[in-house]
């Protein structure tokens, strides 16, 4: 027997298309722990109305209030005395008072006074969350291991925020039930959904993951057959979007909308916090830069228009999540983004710090080939325009 013949005999030809085997979906299980990291709970100013605010987050309920210096505090809502709900109580001086027996709790988690008792009992300390404000937004730090936030894990400051350079944040909130928050994080790498769900045509799409940051760089145009406010009604506009997740739940996106000589700069926040393993609060906010001949009034008007467009888009995401299944083993084409690598990055927030592996945090870059997608979409868009024109006749 010749070597050549042996080699031939050893070749097992597998025609994948000929296989009758059905691919099964592994729907996995939602995680039972909550991600380590800064979570935005909304606009800081909404918590400064002198009242306690009740927030369902991380499978529990917390109370947020402002003390006399304006510092925002976050404590577990359930009073360690008899389990009263502090978020239904009153702010008294710097403390939150329980509506059940008026126990007073400080932002440091300690019981400061029990007015009807001689003294506060031993171990009168409750769970508290580290808080932070950045760019007018309020954040709490979650860590199942109880460690404080490392100094280098933070949310970047927007240059000029707080001056009249930026319009006030618009702020929208959706409660998403029946889905784990990983669904929204998956969108970071999902090039093709931008066409179908967000009515964008990504010309260029690249992800870079590094450390606790997951970036998405996209250049896109709007769809000619379906327009939304994110194009600001600017004809033939191009969108340059540089977005990044800073930790597991907070994305900040710098969007330049370019149309001829006009460039509009918008900051878009897309963030969420988990209520339970299968529900979360999705929030987004936009602010438009007022420089370059854009007046503050015009910027606010533009932010409202952009927000309307983003709201339409997010509603479509929510409709998808409401009906889809969790899937651990997505079946991908060469034109899909790096879903598996993104989830590997995301996993770092769900393991103990000492269990973070190199593959979760090492820099990884992925540039998607959009050639075939753009060819196919151009035909589809043209077809839709023609159909709409003939239907209008």
């Amino acid at each position, binding site marked *: 027997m010749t070597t050549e013949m042996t080699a031939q005999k050893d070749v097992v030809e597998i025609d994948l298309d000929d296989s009758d085997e059905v691919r099964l979906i592994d729907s996995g299980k939602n995680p039972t722990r909550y991600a380590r990291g800064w979570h935005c709970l909304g606009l800081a100013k909404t918590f400064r109305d002198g009242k306690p605010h009740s927030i369902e987050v991380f499978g529990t309920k917390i109370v947020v209030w402002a003390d006399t210096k304006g510092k925002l505090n976050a404590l577990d809502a359930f009073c360690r005395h008899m389990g009263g709900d502090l978020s239904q109580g009153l702010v008294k001086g710097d403390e939150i008072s329980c509506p059940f027996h008026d126990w007073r709790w400080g932002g440091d988690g300690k019981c400061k006074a029990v007015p009807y008792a001689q003294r506060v009992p031993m171990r009168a300390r409750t769970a508290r969350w580290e808080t932070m404000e950045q760019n007018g937004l309020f954040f709490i730090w979650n860590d199942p291991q109880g460690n404080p936030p490392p100094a280098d894990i933070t949310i970047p400051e927007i240059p000029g925020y707080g001056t009249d350079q930026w319009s006030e944040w618009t702020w929208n909130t959706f409660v998403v039930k029946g889905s784990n928050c990983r669904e929204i994080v998956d969108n970071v790498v999902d090039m093709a959904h931008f066409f179908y769900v967000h009515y964008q045509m990504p010309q260029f799409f690249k992800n*870079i993951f590094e450390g606790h940051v997951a970036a998405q760089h996209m250049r896109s145009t709007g769809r000619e057959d379906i327009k939304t406010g994110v194009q600001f009604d600017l004809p033939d506009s191009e969108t340059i979007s540089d977005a990044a997740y800073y930790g597991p739940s907070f994305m900040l996106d710098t969007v330049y909308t370019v149309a001829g000589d006009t460039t509009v700069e918008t900051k878009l926040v897309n963030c969420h916090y988990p209520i339970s393993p299968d529900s979360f609060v999705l929030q987004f906010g936009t602010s438009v830069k007022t420089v370059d001949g854009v007046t503050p009034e015009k910027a606010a008007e533009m932010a409202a228009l952009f927000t309307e467009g983003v709201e339409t888009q997010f509603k479509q995401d929510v409709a998808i999540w409401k009906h889809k299944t969790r899937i651990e083993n997505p079946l991908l084409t060469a034109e899909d983004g790096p879903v598996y690598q993104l989830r590997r990055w995301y996993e770092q927030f769900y393991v103990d710090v000492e269990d973070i592996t190199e593959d979760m945090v*090492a820099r990884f870059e992925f540039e998607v080939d959009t050639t075939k997608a753009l060819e196919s979409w151009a035909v589809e868009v043209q077809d839709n325009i023609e159909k709409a024109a003939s239907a209008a006749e």
Partner: protein
Amino acid sequence: MQPIDCHECGTAVLVEKFSVPHTSVQWLSDSASACPRISQANANGEGGLCGTTGLSCSSLRSTIDEAVRQGRIEIGGRVEPVIGQLG
């Protein structure tokens, strides 16, 4: 993924190509210290809000493009990563 060294600084990375426009790069070392361009950009505070995570190295890019032209990096089908391993 296939190993490649940047022709400018010698930094070793893993690369994968599904097509000529597609590129995927797995870094094996800290980019801000291994790559002089990223290191310099980092020192200059370039890259906007997400810093050098927003930037790519043009030398590495041209190294990969050249290797593809010369057939040293093959264009292949999609293979998903093994979790727990770099690549």
